[in-house]
């Protein structure tokens, strides 16, 4: 049975992906809250008692936690004689109303929505390459219409929570592009899924009065998270591997013109520096 890691698998889109994939895969979910994870696991088991699913707890905003959970997952896979990882879905994400930081002093939307996936992928990449596997980021249509603010990537000088969110979603595509530029030859592929507007509680968690209010209204128009989950399954199962980069409802979609190899390289360098790693030195 192929193994897949899904971050943010305790609720929303990530949970639906876990639920769908647990029919055919060994699913390893990551969430930040023990109760939410236990509840999610219970729900999946109640529908499918034979499901293979395990949850790991980590606050992925903090880099130290990303490193810890990556190590725990590696050990867990080894102990279960699973020698490769077929899929990694970097889905955990957040919305903030104010400038808030991680323990390292990194802006939280950037830290969780982009850096966490960047670092987790690095830690698990040797296992993914062994499986000639696939890496999928949860992006968003909102990545369009903006540029990366290179000289102040945390946007500390002029913080706007929405810009920070959009920028983090642009980072998702740049990261996927950078991965493909570097590792397609090693047999892996990276994708970004635009889930569309989805009815989840993302804007009601740790957000202020206004964001909370707006999201409560907006999400009513969203689709059920089961809908986007299918696109992840499609990207994992279609053979040969789909050639595109950005998908919505199982179809390729156009993305921002900011997504160039040059910008991807620049983001790679910066993210490597901020995470204290180097993809070039990875031993696969």
């Amino acid at each position, binding site marked *: 049975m192929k193994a897949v890691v899904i971050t943010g698998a305790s609720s929303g889109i990530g949970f639906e992906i876990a639920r769908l994939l647990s029919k055919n895969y060994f699913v390893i979910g990551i969430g930040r809250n023990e109760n939410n994870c236990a509840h999610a696991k219970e729900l999946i088991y109640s529908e499918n008692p034979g499901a293979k699913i395990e949850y790991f707890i980590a606050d992925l905003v903090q880099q130290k936690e990303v490193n810890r959970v990556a190590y725990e997952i590696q050990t867990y896979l080894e102990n279960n004689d699973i020698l490769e990882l077929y899929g990694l879905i970097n889905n955990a994400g957040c919305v903030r109303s104010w400038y*808030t*930081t991680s323990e*390292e002093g990194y802006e939280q939307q950037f830290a969780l929505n982009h850096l966490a996936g960047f670092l987790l992928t690095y830690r698990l990449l040797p296992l993914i390459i062994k499986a000639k596997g696939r890496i999928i980021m949860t992006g968003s249509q909102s990545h369009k219409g903006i540029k990366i603010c290179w000289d102040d990537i945390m946007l*500390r000088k002029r913080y706007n929570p929405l810009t920070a969110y959009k920028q983090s979603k642009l980072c998702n595509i740049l990261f996927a592009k950078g991965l493909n530029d570097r590792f397609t030859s090693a047999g892996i592929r990276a994708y970004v899924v635009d889930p569309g507007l989805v009815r989840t509680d993302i804007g009601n968690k740790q*957000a202020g*009065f206004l964001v909370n209010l707006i999201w409560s209204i907006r999400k009513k128009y969203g689709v059920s998270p089961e809908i986007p989950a299918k696109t992840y399954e499609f990207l994992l199962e279609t053979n040969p591997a789909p050639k595109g980069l950005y998908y919505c409802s199982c179809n390729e979609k156009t993305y921002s013109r900011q997504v160039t190899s040059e910008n991807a390289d620049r983001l790679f360098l910066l993210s490597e520096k901020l995470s204290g790693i180097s993809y070039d030195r990875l031993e696969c």
Partner: protein
Amino acid sequence: MNVMITGASGGLGRVMVAECAERGYNLFITDINQAGLLSLKQGLERQFKVCVAAKACDLTKAESVDELMSFIDMHGIRFDMLINVAGIDYEGGFLSIDREKIIKIIALNNEATLRITHDILLRRRPGKRFTLIFVSSLASLYPMPLKATYAASKRFLLDFALALRHELKNKDVSVLTLCPGGLVTTKEAIRGISAQGFWGNATTNSLEIVARKTIGYALQGKSLYIPGLLNKILSLLGRLIPRSWAAALIYLRWSKAQVKWLR
């Protein structure tokens, strides 16, 4: 510029530190939790070209501060600025919090602040101007039922800072007191702000702006910084109406918000 920051790895501490690093200052960061300090030091060195020293210290223990000072003296470090960020509060009315927790508020917010301020002033860089920053709170401006100890401890800092400013004026020391409203520093803080609904949101100040202006005003020699127009108005009202009325009003508002918050 060599800057010492206490409470550096907390929410406000982290942005203050980033603001100083952005300005190219050398940093000495301290906090009670060693792991948080090391993550922060690493994050700073990866983002900015600055020199960062970090050492954990329990400021409420004299021996721990003595140890910190020997470390500083051993390395011959001298300072141009001290930012006193370390401080705590425990939610709940006077009788619903453990006795020792109540005492701890005073031990950290007041005693420890005096201890480190005294020691660092004695270690200022000779012949240079010194800038001293205290983090008080909007809560210092009136007596606050349900936050009685905390508000009084912040009042202590405000009065102390204003007095010390004059005492040290001819020694080329400038003293600024920051009195922010709500700050989005922790998950709990966000919960608290949300529980107060519109008013919570309206009195909340953006961390990164507060940090930038605090350092800016301190360098200009200002004595008091209350961020945000609404907070300035509230502080003015607090001065105009009798203190016992202010206390009664605040009790009304807070008792409602707390019921919602603790639910």
